[in-house]
């Protein structure tokens, strides 16, 4: 899903991409980024691995866990960012690639997010995004695909640690046109994007020194791109929902300053594998309830109705948050956004709301 | 200095002497006194009448308002301070009530002080000082320090110092004032004995009748001058 997440991550780390808008494909330092073009066939497991020629790439795992019979939301995300660092610099420290990772859990009994993050320039085996298959290392954090196709994720910080096994139960879901996903009105505003919904989760959650076995269901997005958002964009909304019948719903919209959608998209894959891909006119986010953050005074539309147009007719999913305060406040180094576990009748997933505290600076 | 065949001048000759205190009160006027060589005069009088001032005037340490003081025929008024100091050094001996013996000098050195000041050779001066100590009853004590002697012995030393350079005139101010009566008697008779032995005239200012009794003449100082004491 969406380059905007990459921005969130970069801003959270106090970073932005080195190149200014308008020079998206090539930086002044002579670094050229691979373009995203339609028609490329994604092949696996190679495309589970990193694509270092592209500017940004992320592996985004979100899901619901059952711990001691209680629902807990979680997310583990790895970003890879290619910088404009001079490619002639032979130093092993040359920051050609930066790896950033973020993890959070949403526990209703805590009532707010617990989060942790890591960042490093790639190198020395301490921070790597492997080419050829999914294998991400960032100090003691890890996300990798094992030989039998099962994913293993390991992340955490001072407040919690996650050690999870994610087992695919469905084939890869190619978003957009066979994995080519448009993000804006400009032809180059696009990414390669696939999802792995309905991952069966088992493992452990460590909290306050106590290790608890957990089970649950998760969703993986992998997306890579070299382009930027449209100039008018101030934020975006995204949702990925594992439906209980085995279907998977993806919906996103890029908003302008007036809250109007600059672009929208998504997909609905039925349990039988039948895939409907949504264009800009097929997806609408409606707001039922807003919540004002006591920390930032930002007003988030946390209860949404997602309306999509399918060949079978219009459908609506009423999303309700696991709890209200799932705002991620990473100030002063990063932005403020809402990233939370949501449920709907017949399904559970994640909703991401960015650009509500302040427009995301580009 | 008078020399030659002329008859020796009196050791002390005072005529028409007048003195006021700095505040203006007249102490005395028309005071006259003449001492013969070897004569001992006791001066008595009430406190504040000017006995000490009279001694100071005679010693050349204070200036009279009027009148004339001659010592051995020398008019004090004609001398400057250094010359008066020289005159004191050569012709006058002093005995103080509080002895004024220098603690850091030996007894012999204390006694020899006037001789040394007169630039006599030190060895010679010390021999004479020791001889003088013999005469005041402190035989063999010349190398001692003042810290080791009693009050009576202090005044013996003072006597020795006053006489060692054979002065014409000895001025003594309450020489027994700090001594017990017995010691005072001994010191007094020693003083008179030594004065007579060296034929020095003396003016002894005292409150003590016993001291006065040892003198040849006893005078009472009043604002009208010196008058003879009537026994």
């Amino acid at each position, binding site marked *: 899903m969406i380059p905007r997440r990459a921005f969130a991550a*970069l801003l959270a780390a106090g970073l932005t991409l080195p190149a200014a808008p308008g020079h998206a494909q090539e930086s002044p330092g002579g670094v050229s980024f691979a373009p995203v073009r339609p028609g490329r066939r994604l092949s696996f497991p190679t495309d589970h691995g990193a694509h270092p020629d592209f500017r940004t790439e992320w592996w985004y795992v979100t899901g619901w866990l059952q711990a001691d019979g209680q629902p807990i939301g979680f997310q583990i995300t790895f970003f890879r960012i290619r910088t404009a660092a001079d490619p002639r*610099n032979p130093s*092993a420290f040359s920051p050609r690639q930066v790896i950033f990772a973020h993890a959070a859990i949403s526990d209703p009994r805590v009532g707010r997010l617990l989060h942790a993050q890591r960042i*490093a320039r790639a190198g020395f085996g301490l921070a790597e995004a492997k080419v050829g298959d999914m294998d991400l290392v960032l100090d003691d954090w890890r996300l990798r695909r094992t030989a039998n196709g099962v994913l293993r994720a390991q992340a955490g910080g001072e407040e919690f640690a996650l050690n999870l096994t994610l087992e695919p139960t469905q084939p890869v879901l190619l978003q957009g046109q066979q994995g080519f996903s448009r993000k804006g009105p400009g032809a180059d505003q696009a990414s390669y994007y696939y999802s792995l919904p309905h991952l069966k989760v088992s493992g452990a959650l460590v909290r306050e020194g106590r290790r608890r076995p957990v089970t649950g269901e998760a969703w993986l997005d992998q997306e890579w791109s070299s382009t930027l958002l449209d100039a008018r964009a101030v934020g975006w909304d995204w949702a990925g929902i594992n439906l209980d019948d085995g279907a998977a719903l993806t919906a996103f919209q890029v908003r302008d300053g007036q809250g109007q959608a600059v672009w929208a998209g998504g997909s609905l894959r039925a349990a039988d594998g039948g895939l409907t891909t949504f264009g800009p006119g097929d997806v609408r986010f409606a707001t039922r309830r807003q919540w004002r953050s006591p920390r930032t005074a930002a007003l988030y539309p946390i209860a949404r109705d997602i309306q999509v147009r399918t060949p079978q007719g219009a459908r609506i999913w009423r999303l309700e948050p696991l709890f209200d305060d799932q705002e991620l406040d990473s100030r002063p180094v990063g932005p403020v956004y809402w990233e939370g576990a949501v449920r709907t009748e017949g399904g559970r997933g994640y909703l991401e709301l960015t650009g509500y505290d302040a427009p995301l600076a580009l | 200095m008078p020399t030659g065949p002329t008859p020796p001048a009196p050791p002390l000759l005072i005529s028409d002497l007048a003195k006021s205190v700095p505040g203006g009160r007249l102490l005395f006027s028309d005071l006259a006194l003449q001492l013969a060589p070897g004569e001992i005069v006791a001066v008595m009088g009430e406190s504040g009448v000017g006995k000490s001032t009279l001694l100071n005037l005679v010693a050349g340490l204070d200036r009279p308002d009027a009148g004339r003081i001659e010592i051995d025929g020398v008019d004090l008024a004609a001398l400057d301070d250094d010359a008066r100091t020289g005159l004191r050094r050569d012709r006058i001996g002093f005995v103080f009530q509080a002895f004024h013996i*220098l*603690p*850091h000098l030996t007894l012999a*050195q204390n006694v020899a002080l006037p001789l040394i000041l007169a630039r006599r050779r*030190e060895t010679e001066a010390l021999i004479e000082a020791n001889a003088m100590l013999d005469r005041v009853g402190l035989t063999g004590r010349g190398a001692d320090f003042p810290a080791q002697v009693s009050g009576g012995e202090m005044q013996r030393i003072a006597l020795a110092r006053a006489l060692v350079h054979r002065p014409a005139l000895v001025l003594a101010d*309450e020489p027994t004032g700090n001594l017990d009566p017995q010691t005072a008697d001994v010191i007094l008779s020693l003083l008179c004995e030594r004065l007579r032995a060296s034929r020095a005239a003396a003016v002894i200012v005292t409150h003590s009748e016993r001291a006065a009794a040892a003198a040849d003449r006893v005078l009472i100082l009043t604002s009208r001058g010196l008058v003879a004491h009537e026994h």
Partner: protein
Amino acid sequence: MVIGEWRAQPGRTLAAVLAIAVGVGLGLAIHLVNRSALDEFAGAVRSVSGAADLQVQAASSAGFDEGLYPILARLEGVAVASPVVELRALTDDGVALTLLGLDPLRAASVTPNLLGRPAAGDGGGTAAEAVFDLDAVTLSPAALQQTGLRVGDPIRLSAAGQSATLRVAGVLEGISGDRALGVIDIAAAQWRFGQLGRLQRLDLRLTAGADRGAVERAVQSKLPAEAALVTPQSEMRRTESLSRAYRVNLQMLALVALLTGGFLVYSAQTLSVTRRRPQFALLRVLGLPARGMLSQVLIEGVVLGVAGAALGVALGVGLAELALRLLGGDLGGGYFRGGRPPLAFTPVAMAVIFSLGVAISVLGSLFPALQAERIPAAVALKTGSGETPDAAGQPPPWISLTLLAAGGLAALAPPLGGVPLFGYGAIALILAGGVGAMPWLARGLLSPLRRLNAPPPLALAIARLWGAPRQAAVALCGIVASTSLMVAMAVMVTSFRGSVEDWLIQILPADIYMRLEPGLALDPAAQARLAAAPEAAAVEFRQSFSLRLHPDRPPVQVSARGGPGTSAGEGLPLVGAQATGEGLPVWISEPMARLYDLRPGDSLDLPIASEMQEGLFVAGVWRDYSNQFGALVMDQSAYTTLTGDPGRAEAAIVLRPGLEPASAIAALRARLPDSLAPGADFAEPREIRAVALRIFDRSFAVTYALEAIAILVGLAGVATTFSAQTLARRKEFGMLRHVGVRRGQIMQMLAAEGALLGAIGALAGLTLGGVMSQVLIHVVNPQSFNWTMETRLPWPLLASLAAALVATSAGAAVLAGRGALADSAVRAVREDW
């Protein structure tokens, strides 16, 4: 009654109070300045090493292999490892700064204060951009100020022989003070300044709750020879050892001032007790117990001490502030670069020094108090005399002799914790013994004079001094103390300076010395070209670098010297015998020999060029004043063999006879490669010597100032004591006037007394000072600084000191005499007329 007494003697009371104040003030000032400087220095160290829990540092500026970074980063207990390239860099304008190459992403969680914030709104740049901008340098405020640059300006930096033009992208707001620091990206640092594959430092943050000792051991086991583990504690220790010896020296000098104050309190109280003998006697007769006298005098001592110490604390804070402003944190010692640190307040130290001042005052009052207690009431009342007989109540001479002997023994003892405490103890004992022996010394010196047939005033003066040596001692103790200490310091400093001067001539025999900027080097071709210069009769190339041999000690300076046919040992000012042995010979400096306990013939391993080089041996020890922490010299060939580095950054050039150095330098510079010529610094030994001696004099300037203050306090003590003693002798003068002593003769007598006393004091001071200087030279200096020197006497200084002392004493006596003789002789003896 006490107040009345002090009011009657304002000068003496004031002098005693001031003396204590000066002692306390100096002690406190030195302490505060050092504390402030150390805090600042430690702060600087902390800000450069960040909040790292552990630090691995390279043994030399060549660094260590970067492969150590992932190894340590993955160790159990290490949360984050932040790799650092650390270089000394110069701008084109010659501003020197420490250039750190950091990975900001790592540093952010280990040393966040080393990350800058760019000036907001400047050219649209953001912090984030600066982070990965390999052309960006973030400067500390001091570096910005020294370079005169602003954010956005280009800056050309040279380091390790390479130059790069960068852009000032922001300010390191976390770096306070005068620390000139620049931070660039580690990749840029490695690439632009020839450090590919090398790191100079690794800052480690431990995981919460990790067993520190275990982690240290684990780190230690992974370290190559060219890297060493440094904890913030050991860094502090090193910082402290840097200036500790110098600080202890100054601190001791301040205590000396305090001691002088103690002696002055003794003088003042003794005189005051003497003066009040009748008064005390009266009180005794009226029923005050003897103990009452004792406590009264002691209470006076406390009051004097409290007044003096309070004044001294104020003075000390003021002095410290002033000194920090004028001289910087090391009081001119040259140990801390830059830095006018803010004043650090240390209440505990203040309290300690304050109490010390009071204690010294009470101690100074103890003898007079005991004296007051023993006053025989009857005698004192009866005589009514102020003068005390002298012989009684005198401590026997064996006490002084014992003290002197104990001092001699203490001088033989080894240092305690690197500080020559016993040496200072020896000085204190010798001082106490010497001052205690003053009465005997005075008598002994005056005895022959008594036999002279001197004119009466002189004879009287001699007689008085001989007869009352204790009074002389009372007057002199303060000045003897301060004079002897000044003489000791002066002799030590002169010896030191002379030895340094000799050493400079010996160690710099060539006509011209050339040195390249840090990082630059002459390759063999450039060396050959320079050696072939027609102006040069002989050229010896050298290379130096620093090498850390012990994590808790500053690095030693290693240099390669000597020519193709000559040994590096030739031309060194060797001390003692040379040794022969197997392997490569090295010559070590005296400080190194002492610090690392090495002797000629010992074998030695050095971590050079990534590995531990074994099989070196110490061929000789040479005298070195330039590096307190050790230096080592090896042959050119040995250096090249060990390091494989043919480059040389220094050259010693002997000119052909008759050549002008200035024109020769121009010609030699022209023969250097274009890239190196601007970075070459030529100096003549004359210049170097002048600079070295200037630095030397600067670092001792404060010492001189302290000495001068101690002397002034001592002289003030002499003057006030004299006037007190003289005023007390009014009756004596009155009697003498009666007996026929002229006023002028009394003045002559007093002048003679003063001059004689001054002479005795000078002689005692010179003798004691001479002895104490030997303790400083042969015990304190080797133990503090690890170097030796040869004694030289500053005759002009000593002579003028003695003359000043005699003149001041005589002058003080005459001045006091004028006052005493202003009263007429009549009044002087009147009290009992």
